[in-house]
């Protein structure tokens, strides 16, 4: 089915919805690299105007990635709930945007609508939205998940404490972990990206994280971000695995590039659930995604990178995760060129994830060959907090010495809390106050030695030295 619009003397024609979506996407380098982007600014807006007139129902019949050969497409279409879709079934994409921005789209209405939305519909409407729209509607979405604490309560955001080390050295990881805890980080998860992907190192890392968490009785969860098959083996070996992690993408081919499919993700989830380690909830999965992943795996099927990213969220929601985050600025300038493109993509990803019911976080980050810096990260963080982001990633001094990129510092999250008044996960915040790290309002106490005084940090340090 073709889409067309006349502007002045030009008739713009788009052969199908996939092409219309690509041409309507706000400018970014990845779609240009793929050769599917609009060829001019007017071309792009013509596509957005044509997209605004497209019926939402068209998305149920349009093919983005072939149904017969792609299990992600089958997951999306077979799981579609027509009854939930009914309230918006007669709208165009443009009318859907207006409805979302109106008081009619309450938190309850948005929750009820989720099973009726496909990722492509959500991606489509996001292409017609400005940053303020993306913030406003995402802020109306309510997504609460739980494991050992509760993520996503109103007026909170959580932080992943990411204590990476270039060689996975136990003492190096613990040093960054303790530093972050003393700065009040880690309610989303203590999560290490391993430099290696062996089962032995995986077990050592989750053992270390679990020991620190257990000794200090921190109400949070831990994760080693190794491959899902490594996690399954570690669980079989008896390792203390709270959350199972996996990078995922929006097509079967791109997931194959990550070495996963829906069946192995289901197997991993079952394995983690079998351990029964959650106390306040049973969300055991942690996923990372990012625009450009499908293109870099050459499995994007001519679909724009933002729509492919939203399709990854259909995979994620199937497994009821505790945490999902886009690693928005990590992939590099060939996909998102500068701070402007990263900022928009981060807010798009957060919006699409929340619309589909995910506990959406963002790694607010950039690499050194992107045209971006810490000012861009400050702006994106504050926008995301207004949008109700579930969690962000934090590392010592904003510098990840293992992955060689810049994210947020523990300090950045503290500063954002001071500016916006947002609190941490309630169980974690209560623990911080109990051990004396914070006051009743969640502010750090001026004496950072609270944990030391109880012997906790001193004991840990001795333990680390003994391990030398």
């Amino acid at each position: 089915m073709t889409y067309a619009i006349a502007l002045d003397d030009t008739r713009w024609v788009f052969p199908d919805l996939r092409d219309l979506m690509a041409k309507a996407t706000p400018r970014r380098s990845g779609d240009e690299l793929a050769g599917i982007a609009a060829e001019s600014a007017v071309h792009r807006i013509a596509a957005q105007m044509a997209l605004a007139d497209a019926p939402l129902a068209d998305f149920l019949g349009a093919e983005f990635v072939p149904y017969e050969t792609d299990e992600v497409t089958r997951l999306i279409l077979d799981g579609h709930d027509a009854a939930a879709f009914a309230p918006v079934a007669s709208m165009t994409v443009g009318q859907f945007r207006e409805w979302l921005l109106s008081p009619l789209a309450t938190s309850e209405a948005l929750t009820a609508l989720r099973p009726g939305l496909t990722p492509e519909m959500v991606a489509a409407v996001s292409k017609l939205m400005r940053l303020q729209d993306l913030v406003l509607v995402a802020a109306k979405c309510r997504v609460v998940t739980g494991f050992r604490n509760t993520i996503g309560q109103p007026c909170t955001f959580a932080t992943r404490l990411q204590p990476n080390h270039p060689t996975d050295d136990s003492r190096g990881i613990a040093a960054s972990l303790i530093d972050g805890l003393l700065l009040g980080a880690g309610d989303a998860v203590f999560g290490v990206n391993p430099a290696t992907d062996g089962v032995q190192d995986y077990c050592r890392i989750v053992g270390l994280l679990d020991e620190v968490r257990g000794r200090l009785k921190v109400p949070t969860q831990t994760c080693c971000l190794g491959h899902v098959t490594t996690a399954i083996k570690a669980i079989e070996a008896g390792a203390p695995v709270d959350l199972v992690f996996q990078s995922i993408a929006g097509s079967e081919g791109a997931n194959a590039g990550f070495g996963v499919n829906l069946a192995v993700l289901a197997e991993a989830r079952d394995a983690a659930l079998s351990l029964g380690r959650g106390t306040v909830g049973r969300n055991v999965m942690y996923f990372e995604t990012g625009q450009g992943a499908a293109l870099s795996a050459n499995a994007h099927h001519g679909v724009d990178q933002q729509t492919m990213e939203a399709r990854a969220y259909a995979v994620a929601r199937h497994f009821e995760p505790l945490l999902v985050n886009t690693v928005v600025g990590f992939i590099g300038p060939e996909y998102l060129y500068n701070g402007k493109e990263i900022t928009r993509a981060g807010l798009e990803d957060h919006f699409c994830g929340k619309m589909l019911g995910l506990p959406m976080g963002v790694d607010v980050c950039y690499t050194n060959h992107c045209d971006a810096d810490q000012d861009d990260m400050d702006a994106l963080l504050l926008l995301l907090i207004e949008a109700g982001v579930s969690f962000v990633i934090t590392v010592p001094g904003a510098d990840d010495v293992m992955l060689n990129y810049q994210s947020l510092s523990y300090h950045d999250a503290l500063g954002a809390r001071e500016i916006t008044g947002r609190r941490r996960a309630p169980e974690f915040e209560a623990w911080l106050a109990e051990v004396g790290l914070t006051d009743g309002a969640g502010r750090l106490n001026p004496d950072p030695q609270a944990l030391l005084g109880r012997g906790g940090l001193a004991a840990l340090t001795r333990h680390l030295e003994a391990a030398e």
Partner: protein
Amino acid sequence: MSDDKPALPALVPASDSLSNLRHYTAARVALGRAGNALPTAAHLKFTLDHARARDAVWSAVDGGRLRTALEARGFRVATVHSLAEDRATYVRRPDLGRRIAPEAAAALADALGPCRLVVVVADGLSAAAVEANVLPTLDALAPRLAADGNAVDAVVVVEQGRVAVGDPIGAVLKADLAIVLIGERPGLTSADSLGCYLTFRPREGLADSARNCVSNIRPDGLAPADAAYKIAWLAREALRREISGIDLKEESAAELTAAKRAETKVVGTD
């Protein structure tokens, strides 16, 4: 603010016991805080490191000076530009940085003729790495290669080049081995890290798994002299066994371990 509380200091420094954490990691731990923010010195140190990394990405190699230095060492040298015309294009279009124009390829063949072993020097993502570490690496590497009977026949300097640009260059020169020396993506702790990729019988369309990589070449990382030892070893074995990449890595793993050299890995990044 009430009068009966003592005034708090503006800066909360890291305690001594916390500062001990720095023994265990190069991460920016125990920074202290000003309110909730980074102290000024820590903030400026970060911005300095980022500025160095950005300058490494966005500055150009002085090609004339490099060529003169290479020729003074007796190398036959040619210069070529990838299809990425400038830095802004280069960072957006990795595909263009991997290719050269057909006319440029023909000119290379005319200038240099067939070469058994060609060294390709590409700016990659760090001009600083090329400026600082290419000559020391080559000075250590060329005699080792020559001693094994694998003398460097020519050096091709590429502007706006990615790793795989060594494939069309090696192919047009009919090379048995291309050794690409390229600036790596800078981190905050090291802006001048050089990478080395070896490819047996380079030709267009090879997967990155067909290459062997020696990374982090810089004085504070893998020192150029140590890198040269490993590169020469890989070059000798690649030419002798007529393979490179995963196959060579697997065959050589035990020997490399025995030699206790720093890490060698096959990677897909450039």
